[in-house]
């Protein structure tokens, strides 16, 4: 080690009191900090529930209020009694088939909606002519509320499966197109310019630059698509159905079986939660290159 020092008179301005109590920060390794009983306790507890903290807290409060008799059974039955109803309905052989038919509708609707959204989104994003063909229509469709289309769809396609599936695909397709289009157009222009200068062809530009660059936006679109498709599922099934989760809810409402209504709602929300977790896993796999922000 060499050390070079240029001696110069220390800069001490008039009236600068060097011994005054200026505030200072001292940084040491985290484990070197003196341990208090409180910090040990805090480290041990460290939010074991993660993002489920608030939902669990709400459930516990709900249960307590129900048991105490503050919440009437007909308005909001206790969580434990909803679980019991779910098990009962399953054992009666009602819930299983209803859930199956709902999932089937969601799957078919999603498959159609996502395919249409991805194909048009990629064409619109990559080609000027694709933008002219699709962008206007989808922007208009985007402003039409999903639920307002339902009556029209019933008139056009009847009250059979077709209406339900199409409503779900409408809900899934529009946000996928919008996000994918924006994501492809949003890929950094300087990276595209750089790729052109390396002599890479159009195919390589699309597969190595545009598609991976648009992936974050695609995943945002997927998140919206899944959420809206569940919304479409609920809307389609509640209005007219003789089987499915929505039918279960309508039936519960008719016979004042609040328990049964809640069972349906819980399953819908679980589907939403599952969809979100699915996209999270995809993000972790597909966006490994992105150092993610982690809150302290």
């Amino acid at each position, binding site marked *: 080690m060499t050390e070079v020092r240029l001696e110069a008179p220390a800069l001490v301005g008039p009236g600068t009191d060097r011994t005054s109590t200026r505030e200072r920060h001292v940084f040491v390794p985290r484990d070197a900090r003196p341990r208090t009983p409180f910090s040990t306790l805090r480290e041990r507890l460290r939010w074991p529930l993660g993002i489920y903290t608030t939902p669990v807290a709400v459930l516990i409060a709900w249960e307590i209020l129900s048991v105490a008799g503050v919440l009437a059974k007909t308005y909001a039955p206790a969580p434990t009694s909803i679980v019991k109803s779910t098990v009962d309905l399953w054992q009666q052989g009602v819930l299983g088939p209803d859930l199956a038919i709902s999932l089937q509708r969601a799957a078919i609707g999603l498959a159609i909606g996502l395919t249409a959204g991805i194909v048009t989104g990629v064409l619109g994003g990559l080609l000027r002519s694709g933008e002219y063909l699709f962008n206007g229509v989808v922007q208009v469709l985007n402003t039409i509320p999903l639920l307002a289309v339902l009556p029209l769809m019933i008139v056009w396609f009847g009250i059979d499966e077709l209406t339900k599936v199409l409503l779900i695909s409408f809900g899934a397709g529009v946000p996928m197109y919008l996000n994918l289009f924006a994501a492809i157009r949003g890929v950094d222009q300087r990276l595209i310019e750089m*790729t*052109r200068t390396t002599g890479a062809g159009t195919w390589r530009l699309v597969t190595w630059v545009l598609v*991976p*660059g648009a*992936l974050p936006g695609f995943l945002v679109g997927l998140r919206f698509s899944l959420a809206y498709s569940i919304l479409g599922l609920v809307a389609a099934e509640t209005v007219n159905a003789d089987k499915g989760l929505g039918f279960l809810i309508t039936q519960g409402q008719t016979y004042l079986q609040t328990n049964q209504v809640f069972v349906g709602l819980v399953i819908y929300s679980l589907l939403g939660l599952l969809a979100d977790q699915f996209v999270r896993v995809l993000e972790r796999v597909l*966006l490994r290159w992105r150092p993610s922000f982690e809150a302290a």
Partner: protein
Amino acid sequence: MSAPVATRHRRQAGAVVDKVVRRFGDRVVLDHLDLTIADEELVVLLGPSGCGKSTLLRLLAGLDRPDGGLVEVPAKRAIVFQADRLLPWQRVLRNVTLGLRGPDAQKRGREVLAEVGLSGREGAWPKELSGGEAQRVSLARALVSEPELVLLDEPFAALDAITRLRMHDLVRALRSKHHAAMLLVTHDVDEAIALADRVVVMRDGRIGASHHLRLSAAEREASVAREELRSTLLEDLGLAHQH
């Protein structure tokens, strides 16, 4: 564009710029500018910021078209940009082989990465690299296609002084292996003296002065000739009074 024009002007030169004019609105940035770069010559283009250095480089790269005159460059050319411009979603090796085709692309990518001192980092993501490493990857990306002309647009401007000196050594080492004409745009006089075969200074949209450097490596570091050249260049840049 057409083949006959290309052959008529072919004078065994790395690049020819003939009376090129480029305007942005009313502002004439390049005013009948002439510049010829010989094969395997390293020309440093010096000039204050905003004088049109980057405009000229973009014309040579084919990223922009002149409003008048003619630009002739080899088809095999590569650019090193001011920012590294690496694809954050591709690993280092794929960033290097971006423009390559064929079965030996990976092998060539690894070889060039070794040349810039980055063997073993092929699998890293660009966001994991330091500024100097990232700029070395973009150097490798430019050299991997064995270009006849390499255009460098202030490639080391964002690097710290020590890393910049290392990069200068690297450029000198790479020149002995890759036989390409180079045009390096910079506003750093010391960088120009360290690397150039010829320094051209841009003023008022033209090449104002041109200096051939026939100094040895040691003389470029410290010598009377170096200091004289340095003050001449500063004078050309209109900075004589401040130094």
